[in-house]
């Protein structure tokens, strides 16, 4: 974008920072408001918040405003510094993920050469935040919840990483823009009219990725770590007010982040067949397209969350190690073989 | 940038690591100190790689990271074993494990 290019580095950076912060908060807010409050309520055959503002649209603001006024409690036995730090770590990890997601031909924050690799790397930081939160609270539910959560996150991070490999093999690059381009220009068995969103060829990868994503977000059926009916709120048990809100935002923002990544990797990112891959208008349309795809994926997350019972800790570990990881390894080998053969 | 910057940083890290290995009693902390040393080595490797304009430094650093992972895994397992048998992870008591 020409207008954009004339700005100084710092101006660009600030502009993009604001843009990406929007991109973090918007999906998080949208997910909470739209899915958690509304669609899920409809699933339950009820209405959900509708008194705050027209049709309940200001509910979210009320939540934030309330959190601002809530007392901030640090338990006396807790490790004060770490207790306060943990939510930052979790949210920071999400922020860092968003930094690398492309929203349009020029609408990106950074365009890293190792984009997807970088995303996988920084998304694993949140494990530390969760472990620290559980440990620093000096509370049994928290500790148990933190350990369970961390155990689960690492167990499902692997399938997620491995599911991505298939896409990387097909695209031949780690760069997310490159992956979007590869999907836009790709063709399946010679038919390239619609490009090749990798969901078509990598549907196993997508399935594994979505399952792993569900687990990474600790949503039912993988929400044992925060299982209300035994561990109260897991590692978040002792958090109150704004710090809890940070975790809360973190949870939904990372739902957005993972949805964005999945959309980019498997659904063609900000590109839609029939649109231009390079034109300027895509910098406006692209984010919307991506957002739409994120909503679809996000909806699936919440849909599943409110439908299924949860797996037991040992069952979900077993599922990760004995089902998902072998499947994704096989997927890699199959994809690689096909790639080499064709 | 000077190559020296990196080498000196590595030297400092290395020395701190050595100090940690010697001064720490807690097995986990000793392992962490070893990580410091390995990181110092990695800095050197990468810096030299860049200095010479080859990619070997990086590759070696990757290998070191992999080895470090293996090392930590086994090391912590030993510490756990130690803890299991002695209810303490003070490394200077390891000698008493013999026999």
């Amino acid at each position, binding site marked *: 974008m020409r207008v954009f290019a004339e700005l100084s580095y710092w101006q660009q950076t600030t502009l993009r920072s604001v843009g990406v912060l929007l991109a973090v908060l918007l999906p998080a807010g949208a997910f909470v408001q739209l899915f958690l409050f509304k669609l899920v309520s409809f699933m339950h055959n009820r209405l959900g918040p509708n008194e705050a503002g027209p049709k309940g649209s200001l509910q979210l603001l009320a939540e934030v405003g309330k959190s601002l006024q809530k007392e901030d409690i640090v338990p006396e036995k807790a490790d004060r510094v770490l207790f306060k730090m943990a939510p930052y770590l979790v949210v920071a990890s999400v922020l860092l993920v968003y930094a690398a997601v492309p929203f349009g031909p020029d609408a990106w924050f950074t365009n890293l050469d190792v984009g997807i690799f970088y995303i996988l790397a920084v998304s694993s930081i949140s494990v530390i935040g969760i472990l620290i939160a559980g440990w620093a609270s000096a509370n049994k539910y928290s500790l148990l919840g933190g350990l369970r959560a961390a*155990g689960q996150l690492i*167990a499902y991070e692997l399938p997620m990483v*491995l599911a991505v490999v298939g896409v990387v093999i097909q695209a*031949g690059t780690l760069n997310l823009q490159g992956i979007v381009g590869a999907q836009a220009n790709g063709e399946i068995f010679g038919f390239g009219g619609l490009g090749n969103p990798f969901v078509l060829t990598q549907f196993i990868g997508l399935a594994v990725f979505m399952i792993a994503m569900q687990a990474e977000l600790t949503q039912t059926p993988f929400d044992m770590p925060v299982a209300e009916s035994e561990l109260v709120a897991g590692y978040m048990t002792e958090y109150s007010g704004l710090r809890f809100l940070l975790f809360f935002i973190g949870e939904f923002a990372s739902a957005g982040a993972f949805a964005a990544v999945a959309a980019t990797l498997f659904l063609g990112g900000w590109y839609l067949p029939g649109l231009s891959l390079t034109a300027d208008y895509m910098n406006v349309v692209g984010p919307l397209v991506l957002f739409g795809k994120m909503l679809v994926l996000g909806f699936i997350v919440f849909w599943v969350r409110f439908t299924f019972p949860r797996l037991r800790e040992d069952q979900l570990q077993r599922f990760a190690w004995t089902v998902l990881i072998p499947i994704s*390894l096989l997927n890699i080998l199959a994809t690689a073989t096909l*790639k080499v053969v064709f | 940038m000077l190559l020296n910057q990196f080498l000196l940083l590595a030297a400092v890290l290395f020395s701190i690591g050595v100090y940690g290995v010697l001064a720490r009693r807690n097995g986990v902390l000793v392992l962490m100190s070893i990580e410091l040393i390995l990181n110092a080595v990695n800095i050197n490797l990468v810096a030299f790689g860049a200095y010479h304009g080859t990619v070997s430094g990086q590759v070696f650093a990757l290998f070191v990271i*992999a080895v470090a*992972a*293996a090392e930590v895994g086994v090391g912590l397992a030993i510490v756990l074993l130690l803890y299991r048998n002695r209810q303490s992870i003070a490394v200077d008591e390891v000698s008493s494990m013999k026999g």
Partner: protein
Amino acid sequence: MSEFLRSYLTVGVFFGVGVAILYSVLALGGLLRPTRPQPQKYIAYESGVDPVGFGWSQSQIRYYIFALLFVMFDVEAVFIFPWATRLEYYDVFGLVEMVIFIVVLALGLVYAWRKNVLRWI
């Protein structure tokens, strides 16, 4: 400064901006929120009874084994990714190499499986 360094710099800047905003929101909350200490407010929550025993305790070694497995496969992923980008050039040779690598690591997984450490107890 190289292009790629700048892109990482922007990551840093972004990180800084994000954390700063979060921090300022918390500070704003600090201005608004009350602090009213009550005798039992800062006791750890344990369903309303006195916390019994140590608030934390060592727990299952399983967690460790799973973490270990994770580390191993994470390292594997580090090598797979560059290979995946270049597979077209390595062709069959690369495929075979990687199959060997994966199989060797999978052996570890199978070993763990057989040793029943994937049972989470």
